[in-house]
């Protein structure tokens, strides 16, 4: 199978990890990297800050923009970000748990339109409801895991069947997803 899109979510306690992950990406990556950080203000400068870390161009997509490989896309504040194989769709539906953007609309629609060609990880430090979004990817054959980036709490091995990747293994896992054209089945 081939990974055609990589989704990277970060809960509010892990938002700072996103820059560190992006900084390790090579200059050329064969997939688009779509980043969702909930709880954002329209005026925040996250896109600007991430661009300083990332060797790839970082942008906030507009509605119906084409999804191109080798770029980092950041879900804009105030909208949910959805994908339709190759195209972004923005939505103003109600915030989910007070969050807009949030993980579920992106992961659900990536599972729908990319199926087993979607891979994704949500960086977090707590067992909350974000596993459901990753489970949606996995249910349609995609690859998904939780990245445990908390220094405090010990990582569980899985959350409701969604594998948890420990802190020091998170970056290699993401690199493999973003840079390998084809991956063997059966891994987390």
């Amino acid at each position, binding site marked *: 199978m081939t990974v055609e899109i990589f989704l990277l979510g970060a809960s509010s306690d892990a938002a700072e990890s996103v820059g560190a992950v992006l900084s390790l990406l090579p200059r050329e990556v064969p997939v688009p990297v779509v980043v969702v950080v909930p709880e954002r203000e*329209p005026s925040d400068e996250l896109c600007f800050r991430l661009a300083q870390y990332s060797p790839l161009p970082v942008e*906030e*997509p*507009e*509605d*119906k923009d084409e999804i191109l490989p080798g770029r980092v896309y950041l879900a*804009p504040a*105030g*909208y949910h970000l*959805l*994908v*339709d194989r190759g*195209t972004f*769709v*923005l*939505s*103003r*539906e*109600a915030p989910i748990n007070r969050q807009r953007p949030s993980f579920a*609309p992106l992961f*659900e*629609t990536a*599972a*729908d*339109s990319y*199926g087993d060609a979607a891979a994704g990880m949500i960086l977090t430090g707590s067992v909350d409801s974000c596993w*459901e979004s990753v*489970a*949606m990817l996995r*249910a*349609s*054959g995609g690859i998904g895991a939780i990245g445990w980036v908390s220094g405090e709490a010990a990582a569980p091995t899985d959350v409701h069947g969604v594998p948890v990747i420990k802190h020091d293994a998170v970056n290699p896992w993401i690199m493999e997803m973003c840079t390998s054209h084809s991956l063997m089945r059966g891994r987390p």
Partner: protein
Amino acid sequence: MTVTRVQRELEDIEVDLLSEGVRRHYGLELDSFARPMLLRRLRQVVAREGHGSIAGLLASVLHSPTRMEALLATLTSDPAGLFEDPSFFAAFRQVVVPWLKTHPSIRLWHVGCGSPEEIYSLAILLHEEGILSRTRIYATDASNELLTRAQSGRLAPLDEQAAARYLASGGRHELGEYFANEGKQATVSPALQERIFYTQHHVTNDGPFNEFHTVICRNTMLYFNRGQQTRIHGLLFESLGRFGFLGIGRKESLRRTPYARAYDEIEGSGRLFRRIS
């Protein structure tokens, strides 16, 4: 909700059947909606109303025009606050209002009633600029239910954030002056509603119905796919007089349409365009 591959294949068939049924019976084109958004909302409706499947929903809407109305309203409305994206309203005051003031009578088209707070915000702004009394705001939607809801003038009680956005947009009074609070809801002042003309218009099927000085279509086109968006942009272009203004959503653009060159973008305005040809 977790969806397996087989379920997804069935859903695809069911969405096609729903589109076909709704087109043949009601003349509405669900095909022109952005597919992932349509699918997500259909799943939510199916789960909330207990239809079991999209096929179940199809049976329900085919046999009940009321259900069809409710579905259309769900598919094309989103919760919004007053003066959302205050920079848009601030730019509107600075750039559009001085030009509107040069006209003895003003026609303004607000496309979509799915977020009526937007329409009330506009009316407040025009009132404060002293031109509401000579303006006709045409507020249109395909959905009768959304038109009725907007016409009722009822909305959630005002909160501090709305008041702050109003001030950030350049508001000159107290936001509360324009609303009557009645327990768990607020009602917009009848004086503002007097200049708003609610009219049914299918932006996906119908043609232009007037020439306007300004057209506001913020976040309404998000519901539709690219082909339909281009068609709607053609309609907006034809409905706008030369040097008229077009307002779209913060994350929408004219780039991919044939009309990109027909407009000048107003710098730093958060998506205000002026028709120049």
